[in-house]
């Protein structure tokens, strides 16, 4: 068989591609798909499909995802309800493009949030919400250690920046976990 020549994903739709090296998280990819289905429903004038996609965006926020993804889902929901079609589609496309470019920091924060919540429903891992905090703190220590090592090596490009962003995301997650426990 020959090699596949069919364009897929961002390239096929003419959307802005994700930066080289950035890996889109499954959650960001799912949100992007949701927004794209919403755009298609609006373009078709399919009110039932539009409403279904909007409900899915509201539900998406209940999943263990990062604060950035939750905000993006709500932004998309609000944009979808904009009565001016042109503005609505423009805003939705921009959010979808942002999801397409979601990089490693967001990815890591999402993964940590997911494993933390998983801990809550797998009682052996975490019999209370406190285990999320433990998990996050453990990861924070690992990040600091990793950062110290990385700092001694030159020419690492944007890796320290990415780690710094990841730490910020983890700190946010820690605060969220504390709020949840309160």
């Amino acid at each position, binding site marked *: 068989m020959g090699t596949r020549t069919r364009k897929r994903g961002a390239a096929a739709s003419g959307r802005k591609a994700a930066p080289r090296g950035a890996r889109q998280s499954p959650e960001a990819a799912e949100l992007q798909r949701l927004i794209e289905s919403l755009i298609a429903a609006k373009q078709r004038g399919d009110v039932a499909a539009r409403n279904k996609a909007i409900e899915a965006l509201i539900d998406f*926020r209940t999943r263990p995802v990062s604060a950035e993804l939750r905000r993006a889902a709500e932004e998309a929901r609000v944009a979808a309800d904009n009565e001016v079609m042109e503005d609505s589609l423009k805003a939705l496309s921009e959010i979808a493009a942002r999801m397409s470019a979601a990089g490693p920091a967001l990815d890591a924060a999402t993964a940590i949030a997911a494993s933390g919540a998983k801990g809550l429903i797998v009682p052996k891992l975490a019999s209370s919400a406190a285990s999320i905090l433990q998990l996050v703190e453990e990861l924070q220590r690992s990040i600091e250690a990793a950062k110290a090592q990385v700092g001694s090596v030159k020419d690492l490009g944007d890796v320290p920046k990415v780690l710094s962003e990841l730490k910020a995301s983890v700190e946010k997650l820690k605060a969220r976990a504390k709020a949840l426990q309160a």
Partner: protein
Amino acid sequence: MGVHPGQARRRQLCASGIAALAIAIALLAGCATPDLRPFAEQTARLAEAVAGEQRQIALKYVRVIDLNDEACEKEKRAAARLAEPKPETPISCTQKEKREKNAASYAESRRIIDGLLEKSVDYAATLAQLAQAGETGGEAAQSLLASVRQFGNLVGVGGPVITTTVATALEKISTAVTRVQAQNSLAEATAAAQGAIDAVADGIRDMHAPIGGIADTLQHDEKSLLQTLAGDDLVGLFRDATLGREAVSRRLNGPEMTELLKCGATGSDKGKCAQLQNSLRNAEELGRLLDQLRPEYEAFVTGSAAAKRWRADRDENLAAIAKATQVWKAEHARVAGALKRCGGLNAVRCVQVDAASLKVVVDQINEIRSQKDR
């Protein structure tokens, strides 16, 4: 050829009898102007039903704005706890301002529809009063003209507020006014007013139509805000914990329960017993977690379900109002027809214009609203 005097007398008597009969019929015709009060009553009920529907939207705007306010405060407090250097403005705060603007714009459209309905009620009442008083001539036509003119006098409509729908309606009303002005009887004036009635009914239907989209937006807003207030995490956690607990319960309700019961007595397989007892503890812990989260979760679920029902009611009533405006037009055409038929020797054809079909659709609108109130 000569006529016999007796024959001539008989002819004279017959002629005066016919004249008397004609006078009697004409008098009867004057007295038998159709009873248009049912039409006027149903017009008033239609106006009330549409106004009630519009109130539902206005009240939902108030609710959504209040929820935005509450969510905005909650999200601001949460952002302050995170101590970010430049926290982003919560979406609920920006949305509050937007919905306040939307509510003001809706209030203007509501005012125009209410104005048209109010004038429709006045018009129908004038028509019924004139018919009841047996006034069917030129003066009655001029009295009706005054109330048709009122449709065009919507106070404050103009400038940026005026939409294509309103402009079209006003233009058609103006044409109808000119036609009514040229009529010399109530029947002719009512027929000539049909153009204005059509314009008013279609205008109300068209201005009311965007309510479907507005109701969708308000329902989505309400659900989203209730979720924000309950907590996205809490809602997700409750759902996941429910699933987790159900899975553990299913396991423990099967043969494993029998094994577990044996554990206390014999403790034959300590590893297995420890595993089962752990599952039992986990189920209990999940149960406690669910109990803690339940009040907020249930408030969210109940509120969301109510918002969904409210939306479905609006859909039903939107269709019923669109239908009612068309039935109202048709009833008015029947009224004009009845007045025309009622002249001179046709008095026997005069019947009460019962507006029964209009009553049916207005009843339907009121019923949907009263279901919600129950």
